[in-house]
C-alpha cells in the first residue's frame, strides 16, 4: 500500500542533505490572510527518509506552510515541486493523490465508526454504490500496522481508543492511502511521555523505510531526539535549516526568538532593571497558590497535556508575575480555575491569606479580583448589548446601577460615558452595540470593566492577543499602571515580547508544570520549548 519510491537514493537516515533532488521543494512561499501575512517568503525542502522538524513560536506560520503543501490553502506566491515537478494542488484530494498525508492536531475521526471504516472514509472507496470489503481493508490495516509497529485492532470503535491509538489510526489512514510524505501537526501535544517515546520510535522506523516525515512542534527536546533536520520559522519566514546533530536546544531557542529581538530583549532588560526595583518594593503576598492541580493523577502516563499539576506561586502587591508558555500546556485550565469557573482537584488558592479555593466568579469580583479573559469574545464581551451595558454587566444588580427589582439606565449610561472617556474607547456613543467594536476597542471595554474599580488582584490572560501595536501599547500601559498603583498582577501569556515588557518575575508552564525562569528571552524560550533543565545553563552562557 505504501509506495516507497525506489528512485530517491536517500534511504539512510540523516542523509537528506544536499545533492539529490528533494522529494518536496517549496520556494519563496507567501500566504496572506487579509492584512495578516502568515507566511512570507519561506523555503522548505524535504527528502525521502528524513524526519524534518518544523519549529517556531505560536503564529510563526508552521501550520499554514504545511496546509499549503497539503492543498488546504493555496499560496499567494512561490512554487511547490514534488520530485522536481511543479505542482498546484487545488485541494487536499490532489495532495493525497500525490502521496502526501497529514495528521492534524485535532484528529479527524468519527468516534462511532470502527478503525477500518474510518480509514476508508473519504478515500473515494466508499463513494461507490458498494462499500469496499471491510475485511480486506481490515487485513490491509493490520498488515500495515504490523509493518510499522502501529498495531491497532481494525475492528474496534475509534471512540474506545486512547488518544495515542487514535493518532495511530490517523497515521495508518495516511499510509493506507499511499502517503510517502507524512505531515504531523503537533503530534505530541496530547500524548503522555510514554506515548511520545513510542511515537518517535515508530516515526524513525517509518523514515528508515523511506517515508519522508514533517513534524510540526514547539518542543525542543523532542526535536533533538526525533529529527534529522530542523527548519526554524519566525514570523512566517524560515530563518534556518540545520541538521539536528549540528545544533543545540540553545541555538534553536535563539533562532526561534530571533537575534534582532535579542536587542529588543536588552531593551526588555533595561525595563526589567527598572521593574526589579519596583518588585523589591513589592508588598505582601496577595495571591498565593499552593500545590494546585487540575487532575489528581500526576506524573506517569494517562496524564493529559491540558491538565496542570502541583503549581505553587505567590503574587505580591505591586508586582507583575508572568506565566509564559506555549498554548495547550495547561494555562487555559489554570485561568479557568483562578477565575472561579473551574474546580481544582487539589491545592489551595488564597487571596490576602483568605482561602478562596472554589470561590465563585461573583465572590472573586467582590474580593477585588479583576479578570481579563484570554478569549475576550467568549468570556469578556456580550455582543448584542450596548457598550455601556458591557461596561457594567457584572454588577448590574448592584448600586448605583440597579437593585433587586430595577435597573437605573441613567446610572448605566453615565458610567458607560465615563469609562469610554477614561479608556478612550473609540465608539460613536456608549449606547452603540458592542458588536461594532474593533478588536482593540473590544479589549478596551473588557479592560475598562475590570480596571474601572479598585482591585487587589488582576488576572490578565493573553491581554494583547490579536491586537495592533497601538492597542498593545495601551493595554501594557494599563497593566503597568495597575501594578504601580499597588495591584498584584498575574499575567498569563504566550507572547515573549509581552513577557519581557511587563514581567517582574516569570514562570514558564510546560506540560502543566511551572518552572521559574530568569527574565531572559532565551531562557524563557527554551523553557517554553521544554528544555527547562537547560534553562540555567542558558542563563550562565
Amino acid at each position, binding site marked *: 500500500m505504501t509506495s516507497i519510491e525506489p528512485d530517491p537514493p536517500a534511504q539512510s537516515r540523516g542523509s537528506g542533505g544536499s545533492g539529490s533532488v528533494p522529494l518536496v521543494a517549496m520556494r519563496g512561499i507567501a500566504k496572506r490572510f487579509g492584512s495578516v501575512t502568515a507566511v512570507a517568503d519561506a523555503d522548505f525542502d524535504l527528502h525521502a527518509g528524513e524526519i524534518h522538524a518544523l519549529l517556531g513560536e505560536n503564529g510563526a506560520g508552521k501550520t499554514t506552510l504545511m496546509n499549503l503543501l497539503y492543498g488546504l490553502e493555496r499560496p499567494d506566491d512561490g512554487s511547490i515541486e514534488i520530485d522536481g515537478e511543479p505542482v498546484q494542488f487545488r485541494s487536499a484530494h490532489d495532495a493525497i493523490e500525490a502521496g502526501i498525508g497529514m495528521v492534524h492536531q485535532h484528529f479527524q475521526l468519527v468516534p462511532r465508526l470502527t478503525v477500518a471504516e474510518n480509514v476508508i472514509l473519504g478515500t473515494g472507496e466508499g463513494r461507490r454504490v458498494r462499500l469496499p470489503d471491510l475485511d480486506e481493508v481490515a487485513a490491509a490495516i493490520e498488515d500495515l500496522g504490523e509493518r510499522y509497529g502501529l498495531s491497532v485492532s481494525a475492528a474496534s470503535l475509534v471512540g474506545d481508543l486512547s488518544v495515542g491509538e487514535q493518532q495511530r489510526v490517523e497515521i495508518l489512514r495516511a499510509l493506507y492511502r499511499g502517503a510517502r510524505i507524512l505531515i504531523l501537526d503537533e503530534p505530541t501535544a496530547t500524548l503522555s511521555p510514554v506515548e511520545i517515546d513510542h511515537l518517535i520510535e515508530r516515526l524513525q522506523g517509518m523514515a528508515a523505510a523511506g517515508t519522508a516525515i514533517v513534524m510540526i512542534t514547539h518542543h525542543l527536546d523532542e526535536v533533538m531526539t526525533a529529527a534529522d533536520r530542523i527548519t526554524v520559522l519566525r514570523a512566517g519566514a524560515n530563518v534556518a535549516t540545520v541538521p539536528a546533530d549540528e545544533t543545540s536546544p540553545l541555538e534553536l531557542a535563539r533562532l526561534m526568538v530571533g537575534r534582532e529581538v535579542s536587542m529588543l530583549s536588552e531593551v526588555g532588560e533595561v525595563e526589567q532593571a527598572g521593574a526589579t526595583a519596583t518588585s523589591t518594593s513589592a508588598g505582601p503576598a496577595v495571591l498565593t497558590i499552593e500545590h494546585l492541580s487540575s487532575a489528581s493523577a500526576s506524573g506517569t502516563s494517562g496524564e493529559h497535556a491540558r491538565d496542570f499539576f502541583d503549581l505553587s506561586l505567590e503574587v505580591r502587591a505591586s508586582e507583575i508575575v508572568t506565566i509564559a508558555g506555549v498554548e495547550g500546556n495547561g494555562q487555559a485550565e489554570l485561568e479557568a480555575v483562578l*477565575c*472561579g*469557573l473551574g474546580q481544582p482537584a487539589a491545592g489551595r488558592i488564597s487571596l490576602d491569606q483568605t482561602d478562596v479555593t472554589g470561590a*465563585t*466568579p*461573583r465572590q*472573586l*469580583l467582590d474580593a477585588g479580583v479583576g*479578570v481579563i*479573559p484570554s478569549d475576550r469574545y*467568549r*468570556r*469578556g*464581551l*456580550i*455582543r*448584542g*448589548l*450596548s457598550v*455601556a*451595558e458591557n461596561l457594567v*454587566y*457584572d454588577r*448590574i*444588580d448592584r448600586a448605583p446601577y*440597579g*437593585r*433587586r*427589582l*430595577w*435597573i437605573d*439606565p441613567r446610572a*448605566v*449610561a453615565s458610567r*458607560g460615558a465615563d469609562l469610554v472617556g477614561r479608556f478612550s474607547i473609540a465608539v460613536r*456613543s456608549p*449606547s*452603540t*452595540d*458592542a*458588536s461594532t467594536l474593533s478588536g482593540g476597542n473590544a479589549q478596551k471595554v473588557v479592560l475598562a470593566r475590570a480596571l474601572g474599580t479598585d482591585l487587589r488582584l488582576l488576572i490578565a490572560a493573553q491581554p494583547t492577543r490579536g491586537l495592533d501595536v497601538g492597542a498593545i501599547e495601551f493595554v501594557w500601559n494599563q497593566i503597568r499602571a495597575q501594578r504601580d498603583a499597588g495591584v498584584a498582577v498575574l499575567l498569563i501569556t504566550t507572547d515573549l515580547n509581552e513577557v519581557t515588557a511587563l514581567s517582574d518575575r516569570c514562570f514558564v508552564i510546560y506540560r502543566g508544570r511551572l518552572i521559574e525562569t530568569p527574565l531572559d528571552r532565551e531562557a524563557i524560550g527554551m523553557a517554553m520549548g521544554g528544555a527547562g533543565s537547560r534553562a540555567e545553563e542558558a542563563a550562565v552562557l
Partner: protein
Amino acid sequence: MTTTVDAVDSPDRPDPGRTGTGRAAGWSSRLGSLGLSAAAIAAAFVLGGILLALAGANPFQAYADMLSGTFGSRFDFSLVLVETAPLLLIGLGLAVAFRARVWNIGAEGQLLMGALAGGAFAIYAPINSRAVMIPAACLVGAAAGGAWGWVVGFLRARWSVNEVISSLLLNYVALRTLEYTIRKPLRDPVGFQPVSETLPDPARLPDVPGLRVHIGLLIGLGLIPVVAYVMRRTPFGFHTRMMGLNRDATEAAGVRTGRLITAVMVVSGAFAGMAGILQVMGPESRLTGNISPGFGFTAIIVALVARMRPVGVLLAAMLIGALTLGGDVIQRTQQVPRVLTIVIQALFVLLILVADRLGRRSR
C-alpha cells in the same frame, strides 16, 4: 428543532434592538426586524394563496372570506380573541425563555398541568367568592405549570439534560396524567364521558364587557407591559438577555446560569399553566382530555414570529388565532381543508428563518 430555533436568535447576529439603554441605536434595527417579519408573513400568504388555488379555491375569495369571517363582526372577532388569549399568555412566557436561549418545547404539558391542578382546586376548594376563587385558582395553575417547567430547568442545570427533549417528553407525561385523572379520581360521577364535573359558579370566568371573551384576555394584556418592563429594567431580565446572547460571558460575570435557566423555565411554565387554568375556567368550564388543541405548540410559532418581543406576541397571537378560525371559515365557504391554514402558519416560521438568514448576509 434546536437548529431551527437557533437560527432565529443565533449569537452572530446581535440585535441592538434588545438593548435596554441602547435605545437610540435600537430603533432602526427594530424597525428592520419588524419589516423582516412583515415581509415573511406577506410571502407566506402569497405561497398559501398558491396552495389554496391548487386545492381548487379562489385564493382572493378565500382570504376575503377569512377576513370577514374573523374581523367582520364583533361576534367573529370575539372568537378570534378567545383563541388569542391562551396564545398570548403562553407566547409571553416562551418569549422570555427563548430570549434566554432556553428552548422550552413543553408549554403544552405545562398548560395541561396548570389546568389539572387549577381545575382540581376550583372543584374542591370551598370558596364561594369569585374574587377570591379566580385569582387563587390562577395562582395554583401558574404554580403547577411553573413546577412542571422547573423539572426541565432542574434537569438542564443539574445534569445538562437537553431541555428540548425533556420538555417535549414531559408533554406526554402531562397529557396522560390528565387523562388518567379525569377517568378516575376527578371523573364526573354522574356523567358517561371521561370528563370532570363542571366547575362551580365562582370559578367561572366572566366575559370582558361588550365582548364574548373571558377576562383571561385582560390578564394577558396586562402582563405585556410587565414582561416588557422585567426584560428591560430588572436584573433578572438583563441577566436573561445576557445569557441568551453569550452564556460563557454571563457565567464569567458571576451570574449563576444554572439557577437562571431554572428560573426562566419556571416563569415560562407558569405562564403556560395560567393559560391552562384560564381555559378550564373560561371556554371549557370543566377538565377534559382536549382542553388544548395544541396551544402550547402554536405558541412557539407565536413567540418566534413575534421575535420574542412582548407587543409582537400580542400581534402574532391575534394573527395566528385569526388564521386558525379563518381555516374553519374557508373550509365552510371554499370547501378546502382547514389544515391549509396550518401550512401557512408553518410557512411563517420557515420564511422568517429564511428572511433572517438573508438579512444577516446583507449586513
